[in-house]
């Protein structure tokens, strides 16, 4: 295809979803299926465009495709509005369009009969557009714009059932918590703009690499941009919003809070990586944040009893692993894990949605059990997702985890044992979740009467589980084509390689975690209380999520609100009473006095004119 066509096709990616949003939002009731067909059609077309662009991109020798126009021309500075397709963004586009497509199809079954069915799909389209714009944008300003739009989509979908108080609160919490990061991101962008005079990402990186930006500026701006990534990707200590975000419909959790939006932070760090590399100590900070998140969230996931919350903490944990990988110069491994985790976690969330669908929206695992026979397809696909995420050997999660472990061993060897512990936790809690839901016998009426979900919901599960099994093969170089393995695709310098002893250790750790999980929760050979009793304090601490929510609400009510109350006084007295009301009142009072000059009688006005004339004449005389 010629370049002109490709350049226009790129613009179609976000635009088609924006149009879908507008059409559904405005004309939902006139379209059959309340607009779901428009939304699914648009994201399907976006996926086809992705395939065309991918073919063109590969044929073009993996050179970036860039299309932009000047948006604001300030003479010296020009702010452009441009889209860029390079190796990272093409991976992201593929993941977003594909998962969004499957999730939207699944949603038709899941959201059936909802009173705002059309609006649900409208917001889905808006989110898809924002997410595509985010990964396509070539400059930080456009990226920030899309970043906020993505946040809006997330807010609207978490609070989709806003009649429920908890959902409305969760939406607010997610918005406010990510906002802390977003402010950092904005300040970081402004600092970079001031230092380099441009918003264009590649130019900024170029200027920085030439030494045009001082180390201090790079350090602070990188840190602030990373703060934004921490908010969106739910990294410690800004992770508290993601578990609560599970109040939204389950397909939303699958798409936004597992596969795509939370990956935006990883994407941002990967995109700005050449800059972060230059900042002293930035990568160490990223690694530390990543590993703390990986372990803490993994530990919490082990004790949660709500199916969606286990998956949410598991998501946080794996995002931490990706951050850790990025901090260890393992960007290709991180993106590989991002894609595979996206598939596996979307599969698990959709499976959880299918379970909830059969269980009348019960999410408590204590009420489940024995669903293996009643929901065979969900059970098998869920098992595949579980094993993939646990990193059991032939499934895709194993390969990505292996690559991450290699890069950690090479660049951050002292984090390696801790990471292995995290891997162990990860396979333990995933197996625990599977066992509690699907094995043994039914523990409540709901699970007695559970039934398999309709085909429109199970088919996406099957497609995703096929990917969860086989997408790991992307790691290997292909003998017949020019494919050099995923790592080499993202970065030419990274070649596919394996370290046999690390692979062996990873297999042993993952299997032992899975085996322990099966012994405790599947076969019930060891009583759970026997383990939790000696570590009562730790158990309490973990099951209360390390008291993050309590600490934050204490900070919010005691410190922030007290400070705010002081500021209110300033606002009321000085800004409002003196400033705004003061101006109004003084105008009104002077008008009250002055209005008597305007009598409305013609002879008054003409008399004043005559008197004025005489006065002027007298003054003239005196001066002469």
């Amino acid at each position, binding site marked *: 295809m010629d370049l002109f066509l490709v350049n226009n096709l790129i613009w179609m990616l976000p635009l088609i979803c924006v149009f879908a949003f507008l059409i559904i939002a405005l004309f939902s009731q006139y379209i059959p299926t309340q607009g779901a067909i428009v939304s699914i059609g648009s994201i399907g077309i976006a996926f086809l465009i992705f395939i065309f662009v991918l073919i063109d991109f590969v044929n073009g020798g993996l050179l970036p495709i860039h299309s932009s126009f000047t948006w604001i021309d300030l003479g010296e500075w020009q702010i452009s509005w441009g889209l860029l397709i390079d190796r990272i963004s093409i991976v992201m586009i593929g993941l977003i369009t594909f998962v969004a497509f499957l999730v939207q199809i699944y949603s038709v079954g899941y959201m059936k009969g909802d009173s705002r069915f059309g609006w649900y799909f409208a917001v889905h389209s808006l989110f898809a557009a924002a997410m595509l714009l985010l990964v396509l944008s070539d400059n930080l300003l456009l990226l920030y714009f899309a970043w906020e739009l993505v946040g809006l989509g997330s807010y609207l979908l978490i609070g989709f059932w806003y009649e429920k108080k908890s959902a409305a609160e969760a939406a607010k919490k997610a918005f406010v918590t990510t906002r802390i990061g977003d402010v950092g991101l904005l300040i970081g962008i402004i600092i970079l703009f001031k230092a380099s005079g441009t918003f264009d990402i590649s130019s900024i990186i170029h200027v920085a690499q030439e030494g045009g930006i001082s180390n201090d500026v790079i350090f602070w701006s990188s840190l602030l941009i990373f703060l934004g990534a921490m908010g969106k990707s739910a990294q410690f200590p800004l992770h508290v919003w993601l578990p609560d975000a599970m109040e939204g419909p389950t397909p939303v959790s699958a798409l936004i809070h597992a596969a795509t939006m939370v990956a935006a932070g990883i994407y941002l760090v990967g995109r700005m990586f050449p800059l972060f590399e230059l900042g002293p100590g930035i990568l160490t900070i990223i690694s530390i944040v990543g590993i703390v998140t990986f372990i803490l969230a993994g530990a919490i996931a082990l004790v949660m009893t709500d199916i969606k919350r286990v998956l949410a903490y598991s998501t946080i944990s794996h995002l931490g692993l990706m951050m850790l990988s990025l901090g260890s110069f393992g960007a290709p491994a991180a993106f590989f894990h991002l894609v595979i985790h996206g598939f596996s976690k979307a599969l698990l969330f959709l499976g959880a949605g299918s379970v909830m669908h059969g269980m009348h929206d019960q999410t408590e695992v204590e009420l489940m059990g024995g669903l293996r026979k009643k929901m065979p397809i969900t059970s098998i696909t869920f098992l595949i997702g579980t094993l993939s995420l646990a990193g059991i050997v032939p499934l895709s999660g194993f390969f990505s985890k292996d690559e991450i472990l290699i890069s950690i061993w090479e660049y951050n060897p002292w984090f390696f044992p801790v990471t292995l512990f995290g891997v162990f936790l990860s396979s333990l809690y995933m197996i625990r979740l599977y066992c509690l839901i699907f094995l043994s016998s039914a523990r409540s009426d709901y699970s007695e009467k559970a039934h398999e979900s309709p085909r429109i919901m199970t088919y996406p599960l099957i497609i995703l589980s096929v990917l969860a099994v086989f997408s790991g093969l992307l790691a290997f170089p292909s003998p017949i084509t020019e494919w050099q393995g995923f790592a080499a695709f993202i970065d030419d310098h990274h070649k596919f390689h394996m370290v046999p002893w690390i692979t062996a250790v990873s297999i042993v750790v993952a299997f032992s975690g899975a085996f322990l999980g099966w012994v405790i929760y599947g076969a019930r050979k060891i009583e759970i209380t026997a383990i939790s009793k000696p570590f009562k304090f730790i158990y309490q601490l973990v099951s209360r999520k390390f008291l993050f929510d309590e600490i934050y609400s204490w900070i919010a009510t005691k410190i922030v609100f007290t400070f705010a109350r002081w500021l209110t006084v300033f606002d009321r007295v000085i800004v409002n009473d003196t400033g705004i009301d003061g101006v109004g009142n003084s105008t009104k009072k002077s008008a009250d006095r002055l209005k008597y000059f*305007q009598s*409305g*009688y*013609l*002879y008054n006005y*003409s*008399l004043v004119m005559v008197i004025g004339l005489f006065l002027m004449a007298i003054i003239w005389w005196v001066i002469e």
Partner: protein
Amino acid sequence: MTIIHFQFLSAILFSLGLYGVLARRSAVLILMSIELMLNAVNINLIGFVAFRGFGQEIQTFGQVLIIFVITIAAAELALAIAIILRIYRNKNSVNVDEMNILKG
């Protein structure tokens, strides 16, 4: 006859007009008083033109100017009368004291 006579007549007419504008309540009478003032100015002007010893050319120019002023005044008056007529249709009165709806 000297210029002083013209100035005297002009001043009297102007004062009468001014008095009329200030003292009358009827819009028509005010309008007539304004015309009186305008014509007082005209008389003043023609007096100066005629008695200050200007050449023929300037004198002719002055007289033409006066005719122009009278013509424009007539047009202006027609407009003012039309406005007053509209007001009369609306309010059934031409008393300027009643025209106070713009008052603050």
